[in-house]
């Protein structure tokens, strides 16, 4: 159990643990895809993974590099389009958990993937919503995965691409969103959840990451759970599957530490 692991591997494993058996999970590219495959191989064999391009319950034989990668199709239960995946599955309310990336996040879990700086004259123009706004609006709960620093955990995001809780209880509902909201945020430093005021707090810090370091990487006074603990490390089996089966080329996991 003393196997070394990278933070990318830890994040992939942490995302896998967010999927319960039998759940329907909406998957984007990258670490959550690896996490989802891991979940299905281990503790959630009856989970059904939906890929945004319109692929249901895929059985890929290599690491998919996009949500529409043709390697997801042979052996899938259903192959359709965005209307089916985002409309009749996601918007209709079938999706238990969706995964999101973020460039900026605020304490209510609202996220920005569009611009850094002024919207019309930004410092950095980012990719935009993609399916993010839909997933954040319409999945029963979301898990946000992102790199963390002070400029990413901010009091006010420069642009709300995807709504989180939007404010205290009632705010999200008042906007007309039918369900959902962020449940967890997984970063390279720790794992966060949301309290009854729908504000983010630290639930666990990754092995080797101090709470002090986490505080330094949030631009407000981050709340800490009284039960804060260290993030459960990956098991050997998880690491083995990730490295040998799901991403042997290191496309998403990168080089080993």
């Amino acid at each position: 159990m003393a196997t070394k692991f990278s933070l990318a591997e830890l994040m992939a494993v942490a995302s896998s643990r967010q999927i319960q058996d039998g759940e329907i999970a909406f998957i984007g590219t990258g670490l959550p895809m690896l996490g989802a495959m891991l979940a299905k191989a281990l503790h959630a064999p009856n989970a059904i993974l939906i890929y945004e391009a319109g692929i249901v319950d895929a059985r890929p034989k290599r690491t998919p590099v996009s949500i529409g990668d043709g390697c997801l199709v042979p052996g899938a239960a259903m192959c359709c389009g965005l209307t089916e995946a985002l409309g009749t599955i996601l918007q209709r309310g079938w999706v238990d958990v969706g995964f999101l990336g973020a460039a900026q996040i605020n304490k209510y879990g609202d996220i920005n993937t569009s611009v850094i700086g002024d919207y019309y004259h930004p410092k950095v123009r980012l990719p935009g919503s993609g399916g993010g706004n839909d997933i954040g609006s319409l999945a029963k709960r979301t898990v946000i995965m992102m790199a963390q620093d002070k400029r990413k955990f901010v009091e006010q995001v420069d642009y709300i691409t995807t709504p989180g809780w939007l404010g205290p209880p009632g705010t999200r509902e008042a906007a007309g969103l039918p369900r959902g909201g962020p449940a967890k945020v997984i970063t390279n430093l720790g794992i966060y959840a949301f309290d009854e005021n729908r504000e983010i707090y630290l639930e666990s810090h990754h092995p080797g990451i101090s709470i002090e370091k986490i505080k330094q990487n949030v631009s407000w006074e981050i709340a800490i759970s009284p039960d804060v603990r260290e993030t459960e490390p990956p098991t050997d089996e998880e690491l083995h599957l990730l490295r040998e089966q799901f991403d042997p080329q290191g496309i998403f996991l990168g080089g080993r530490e």
Partner: protein
Amino acid sequence: MHRIRKVSSKIMSEREAVETFVVDGIRLRSGGIGLRKPFALINETIRQRRKNITFILSGFTEDGDVMVGAGVASQLEGSYFGLEALGLAHNYRRAYEQGIPLKIKIEEYSNYGMTARFMAAAMGVPFMPVKSHLGSDLVRYHAFREKKAHLMEDPFSGEKVMLLPACPVDVAFVHAQRCDEDGNVQIWGPIGDDEWGARAAQQVVVEVEEIVDSEIVRRDPNRTILPSFMVSAIVIAPYGSHPYQCQGYYDLDLEYRKMYAEVTRTREGFERYLEDWVYGPGSHQGYLEKLGKDRLDRLRAKPYMSDPVNYGY
């Protein structure tokens, strides 16, 4: 029971198709999400140096980036503008952040928002209701559309709902596996929103891996995505989606995509890329020759065949 009929052929070269259907200033839709991108037609549009195109899709990757970098697209309507696993789209960033080669505007929706807008246009209704976009800045900031969205109360229940306007399209490019001579188009694998996006258009220009006998299409009519009367032109473009995939024909060319992501980091690199891979080859055929037979053969899809089904009665 039917006499043989002959219609004037829609089959033409990519040069002729772009000359005929793509004029400056139109609203042009790209195609494919994650695969089946219509690069043969996109590269030809760049070669013919079209200007002021409003380029439209939900998920833009290299297709949007190259059209912006080449100075062809000056406006974008869509939801994602990046290179997926390969990072940010550099031409797009340079254009938006620094006005190189020109200042562009972006009307930003979500993936489903764009799909819903194509659905509305494809079905001839002025808008589509959605339950996303609510509470976000997507509907608060706009670029060039006067009215980007309309928040309303559902007259039946009182709940809030967002109306997104139909997305009109002058010309849609589609890359498909095959069609017959009349232009009955068949696609399999992920459909993306090509079904709706193409039907939203006034004119569809389809590039196909191959033209097959009409009997093959008509033995499996449920695979037809577009009926012939919606298709204006057919371009035979094997490997036309390269470096993207076409299910059943070839895999993605990850090395090429990595090369693109790398060389486009600088404007000079991108200009060299345009010379080497777009202007230089002169045509899709020239592009394929530059790639070389070995490389294309390596990408060729392995067989994973469906079973026949019975359509009899």
